[in-house]
């Protein structure tokens, strides 16, 4: 993160953005399309967040004047990163930005869940606040629906506001069939139907429409998915630990309550 850029535009045949994306520690970022940055509407309000806004914008779009003073340049580099981060947070919640991040998610660029029973589920970056300089980036697991700190300290120092609080949840809202299953190995593909249906069944059920309906139904009801989640049960010489077992029973009773609540809502057509 602390690499000093000696300049942009002149010394680099590549663009500032591709230089930024290829620097060590910036693996979580995706490329913001130039069209998006050049549309001033998308940047509304950012001029109050970033110092030397105009030059910072010129820097990331490779239009910076060569004649810039050296004492300004160091700060400008910081401001350019801040500006790119804040644009990035807006970009990744657009349709095209979500699609770009989806590619990174499928490559597990954000790492995998450290929780053993999540079976190396790929993670998604998330911020705890949308305000910069407050909290570092965290990683959200769609399987256990919890957040973890990045393993490496070079990712642990990235500002969470460059990803925002909404991104992973918006992704699963837009792509509900990508919501990870609560158990079993990790599998990918926009259409999990092909792997879910057994071959014999597919042969029997010829109509594509029916298969389609089933896949929609599968992605449709998530009321009782929590029942499939594996959980770790502490044991001493094979016996459950009293207080922990009691807490886990309580937690599972809370789970069952939610499931019956959701199933009732579903039956009433309220979901």
């Amino acid at each position, binding site marked *: 993160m602390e690499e000093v850029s000696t300049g942009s535009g002149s010394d680099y045949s590549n663009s500032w953005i591709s230089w930024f994306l290829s620097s060590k520690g910036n693996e979580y970022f995706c490329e913001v399309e130039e069209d998006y940055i050049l549309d001033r509407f998308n940047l509304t309000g950012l001029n109050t967040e970033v110092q030397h806004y105009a030059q910072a914008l010129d820097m990331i779009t490779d239009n910076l004047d060569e004649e810039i003073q050296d004492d300004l340049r160091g700060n400008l580099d910081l401001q350019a990163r801040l500006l790119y981060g804040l644009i990035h947070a807006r970009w990744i919640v657009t349709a095209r930005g979500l699609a770009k991040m989806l590619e990174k998610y499928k490559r597990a660029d954000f790492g995998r869940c450290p929780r053993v029973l999540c079976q190396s589920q790929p993670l998604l970056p998330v911020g*705890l606040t949308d305000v910069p300089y407050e909290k570092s980036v*965290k990683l959200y697991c769609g399987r*256990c629906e919890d957040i*973890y700190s990045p393993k490496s300290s070079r990712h642990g120092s990235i500002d969470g506001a460059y990803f925002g609080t909404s991104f992973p949840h918006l992704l699963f809202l837009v792509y509900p069939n990508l919501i990870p299953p609560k158990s079993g190995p990790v599998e990918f593909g926009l259409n999990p139907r092909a792997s879910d249906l057994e071959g014999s069944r597919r042969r029997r059920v010829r109509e594509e429409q029916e298969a389609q309906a089933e896949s929609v139904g599968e992605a449709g009801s998530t009321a009782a998915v*929590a029942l499939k989640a594996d959980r770790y049960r502490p044991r001493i010489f094979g016996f459950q630990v009293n*207080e922990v077992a009691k*807490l886990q029973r309580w*937690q599972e*009773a809370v789970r069952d309550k939610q499931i019956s609540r959701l199933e009732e809502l579903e039956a009433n057509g309220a*979901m």
Partner: protein
Amino acid sequence: MSRRTDYNTLPTGEHSLQDEEAISATGEGDEEMEDAEQEEDGYSSSTPTSTLTWITWFCSLPGHEYFCEVAEDFIEDDFNLTGLNVMVPFWKEAMEMVLDMEPDEDTSKIPDVSIVEASAELLYGLCHQRYILTRAGLQAMVDKYEAGIFGSCPRVYCNGCNVVPCGRSDLPGLDTVKLFCPNCNDIYTPPSSRFQGVDGAFFGTTFPHLFFQSYRELAPAPFYKPSSPSSTSPRSSASSSSNQPPFVNPNPYGGQKRAAGKVYVPKIYGFRVSERAKSGPRMQWMRLRPENPEELDLVDWRGHWIGEDDHYDGEEPADEDRPMEDFDPVGDIARIASSYNLSAYVRPGCA
């Protein structure tokens, strides 16, 4: 005997944990270990120098940071090793290696010293699994725990709670070592790949839980009340943290540490994602704690809410996979009676 004997008196859990949190928050714990790794690079063969015992050497190897040094008199006592000789090939030679005894004259029958090394590691690991359940072993491990050697929980809302090594099986060769967090009661993969060669059986399935039963002041309690309802303002939260009453768990056999009980709430543009959404939260229960310990008693041993009738939806096919039905004497007798009546009417008709 090389085992550390400078056990200090146990510092209070709260105090030392705060120190470790500071260390792990900056990620220095990991770098510290890497330094240790470099220091030990000199020992590339398994022939220790005369001043270094095999056990000390083994525990100082990179990736062996989780091991404590098993007391030699523990290994020398045959009773402690009952049953292990059938699991470890070249038992006698492995024993000699671990205890730094001069080998017998006729070592010619052993084809390769590396086989004995593997046996010695297996023997030591299985002894270690048993040793860390003893009083001395637990003490050795609590020293490492409080020094933050095992690292901290990667889950954000566990607030850097220290973890302990844990096996998923007590039999060797099945799975590598994992880390157990007492705050979320879950297990995690160690962050560094150098622990991927360490067998989980060398720590065992029982150790973490016996550990937190033995050191209850280190175990977070199963209930959590946000410190003050108006903690959103920095002024009130600062004052409440300074004059918080000492934490007490009414269950004397339970965890005596204040839990880190926050649960992640997903939000889109500042609005909580509704549970009615297909992608809505489904797993918050797994990290949830009741505000008061009494609430735990509202659930019976079968995991059902005591005295709640709305769980009698057993007639619906969707609920058939529930493990057991509620047993409420009054309600059930009424239901059983009605089902008998019903069958009395139905059967003759069907026949």
